[in-house]
């Protein structure tokens, strides 16, 4: 095409991240000679089983340490399904109320819909007008019948960090038997995660958001957590998620999780610097503003409100300059497909179509943010007048 970008500036790290070189090195033997089935009793199998155990330990460590169980899954979606469906179905006798956060990932919302069809009463914990979790409403909704509460840790569109630990304490106060779940997919590698400090029973994480492979995630649980499995098979992973394990994916996830966890403070600070740079740069650019939702925010996820043309047009113009970002809602989508998370934040459909998301990783550089700022500046005269 006419538009052949010379370099690539990747600012869509909340969608996925590139594979890190040390991760590639760690997984390489498992694409070659280490092809054993971890359930086999011969040496090849035993080595695969040991690799799996090491990976499990690494992921557990990133979630706060020893006293956890790690079930590898096909990704965040499966982990969320396992937790929400599995915990609710295992507690059918204790109660039928489910509380879900207002901005949950589709894999949590859709699991809620499935439970609702099974007779559970599914309710939503709303956000207040500042984008914070409305804990007062949550408290009013909680009853002794509440069996599952699921609240994401970091909003994937605007970066709000939600007070999961506070919510967990409240939930246990009203319903001692409750299963508290958090989707921490956007938190891993930027926040020091700890299952105990979060006060949750289960936590979903995904490898490809922290420079691992797509197709691998994990559900990390407290020992003894009751979950009804979603699939049945040969008893691997304690029966909670049977099937021959994805050893390559798990090994890569282990390496990636350890790296992400070791560097999480630096990554957070690095992202905070990039966000400040972006914020400063935007101050001189009239018309484009940073969406600020909630008191605590993850600096690696920055959503901009752009003027004139819909965000999707900005996105493709940036793409023509080699800059990859994402949009909150597609250009010609109907109202029903506007991101529910953005609607929950009080944005109307029209404004939701103006949300452009830039998201950073540990590998994002200040030069890249500057390139994006320069591009936004040069595009503004052309695009801000369009509607």
């Amino acid at each position: 095409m006419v538009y052949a970008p010379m370099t690539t500036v990747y600012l869509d790290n909340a969608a996925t991240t590139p594979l890190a070189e040390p991760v590639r090195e760690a997984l390489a033997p498992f694409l070659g000679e280490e092809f054993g089935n971890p359930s086999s009793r011969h040496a090849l199998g035993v080595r695969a089983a040991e690799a799996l155990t090491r990976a499990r330990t690494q992921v557990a460590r990133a979630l706060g340490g020893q006293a956890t169980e790690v079930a590898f899954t096909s990704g965040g979606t499966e982990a969320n399904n396992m937790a929400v469906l599995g915990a609710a179905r295992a507690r059918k006798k204790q109660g039928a109320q489910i509380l879900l956060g207002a901005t949950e990932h589709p894999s949590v919302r859709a699991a809620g819909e499935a439970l609702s069809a099974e007779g559970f009463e599914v309710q939503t914990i709303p956000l207040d007008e500042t984008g914070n979790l409305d804990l007062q409403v949550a408290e009013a909704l909680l009853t002794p019948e509440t069996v599952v509460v699921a609240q994401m840790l970091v909003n994937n569109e605007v970066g709000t960090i939600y007070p999961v630990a506070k919510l967990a304490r409240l939930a246990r106060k009203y319903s001692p038997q409750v299963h508290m779940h958090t989707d921490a997919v956007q938190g891993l590698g930027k926040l020091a995660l700890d299952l105990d400090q979060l006060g949750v029973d289960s936590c979903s994480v995904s490898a490809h958001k922290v420079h691992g492979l797509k197709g691998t995630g994990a559900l990390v649980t407290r020992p003894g957590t009751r979950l009804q499995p979603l699939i049945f098979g040969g008893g691997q992973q304690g029966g909670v998620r049977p099937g021959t394990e994805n050893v390559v994916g798990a090994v890569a996830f282990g390496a990636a999780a350890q790296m992400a966890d070791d560097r999480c403070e630096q990554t957070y600070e690095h992202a905070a610097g990039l966000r400040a740079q972006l914020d400063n740069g935007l101050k001189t650019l009239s018309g484009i503003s940073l969406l600020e939702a909630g008191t605590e925010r993850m600096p690696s996820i920055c959503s901009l409100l752009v003027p004139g043309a819909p965000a999707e047009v900005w996105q493709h113009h940036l793409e023509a300059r080699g800059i990859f970002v994402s949009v909150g809602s597609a250009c010609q989508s109907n109202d029903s497909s506007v991101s529910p998370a953005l609607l929950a934040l009080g944005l109307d459909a029209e404004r939701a179509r103006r949300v452009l998301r830039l998201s950073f990783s540990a590998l994002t550089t200040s030069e890249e943010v500057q390139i994006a700022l320069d591009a936004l500046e040069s595009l503004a005269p052309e695009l801000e007048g369009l509607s």
Partner: protein
Amino acid sequence: MPSAQPSPTELGEPDLILVRYGELALKKGNRGEFEKALVRNLRQALASTTKAEVDRQHGRIFIRPERRCEKAAKRAAEVFGVKTVSPAWTVASDTEAITAQAAKLLESALAARGQSEPVSFRVRVRRANKAFPLNSSELERHVAERILPGPDTVRVQLVNPEMTLGIEVRDRNTFLFLDRIEGNGGLPVGTLGRALCLLSGGIDSPVASWLAMKRGLHMGYVSFHSAPYIGEGFRRKVREVVRNLGRWQYKAPLFTVPFADIQVAIRDQTPERYRTVLYRRMMQRIAERLATAENCGALVTGECLGQVASQTLENLTCIEAATSLPVLRPVLTYDKEEIIQIARRIGTFDISIQPEPDCCTVFQPNRPVIRGRVEDCLAAEAQMDVEGLMQRALDGTEMELLDHEGGA
């Protein structure tokens, strides 16, 4: 009607597919050419199913697939120009062998049918081997008398029976069959020349292309891409449509024309109400240039009278006036429901409804003209550098050859 297909466990797979073609026979002048094209198209179509030999003899095409005879027969029936196909069993041209095989065929067909009312039945013989000891009606009677189980299961009925056992006697071999799979009809793709289809990304244009192919046209495709207002997802969707249409025409060229600069010029330099009509006039002009270079004798569009405000007789006249090539509009008079029905049948519907718009909202007029006038179009275009815009778009046009298998 219940399937008369015998279960393969008792009878074995058929080993041959008989292909009958209809209309071709009417085109006396170039019948040979049509048949050759049909054989060629059948070979290409079957390549995705199995290795097969395709031969032409005495007004029939015979396919000998290496494997998957039933599937190959269904695939062959899709090829334009095919009237019906029958999976068949080959035996030696010998009265006893024919009768024995006929008995097996009928037995397994009745078994597959299960217990029910007696089925009306006849044997129909076609005899190309005039040296065969029995003539057609003698052989029909001979076979029927020996294989019919009794009036409570099978009742002979010569006109419109539910089940017909076909027997074609050739010099050395004889073919027996029960099924006739209805083909798509039409004419072999390529026998009526070439045309260029303007693909919009909507539901209508793939259906228009399919109907044009059905009447023997070989298609090329052109799509207009408004990058950077529209993303790469649109191109992926168009490619998917073209590859899907490759079921009927194995390989097709797709031209992608960069169109944003033209849309910007029209938006900025012409009356807002005329935008849509003017976009389309530019598309037709560019398509005409590509068509001429590709030896295409016509343009094909998915335009449909009155379907949207811009598709009035007046607007279609304005659009058509931009080209001197004939513009074929196979779905012009179809209702949306009729178009959707075909789109579902040919597998393009699910691709077409993917949310990848072909035109960015920033270019859409608020109140498009309903009854455009050619004079107004010409006056508006006088404000623009039509030739220069066209030339730049053509310079940036990319061509790719897409085939059904997926590899370009």
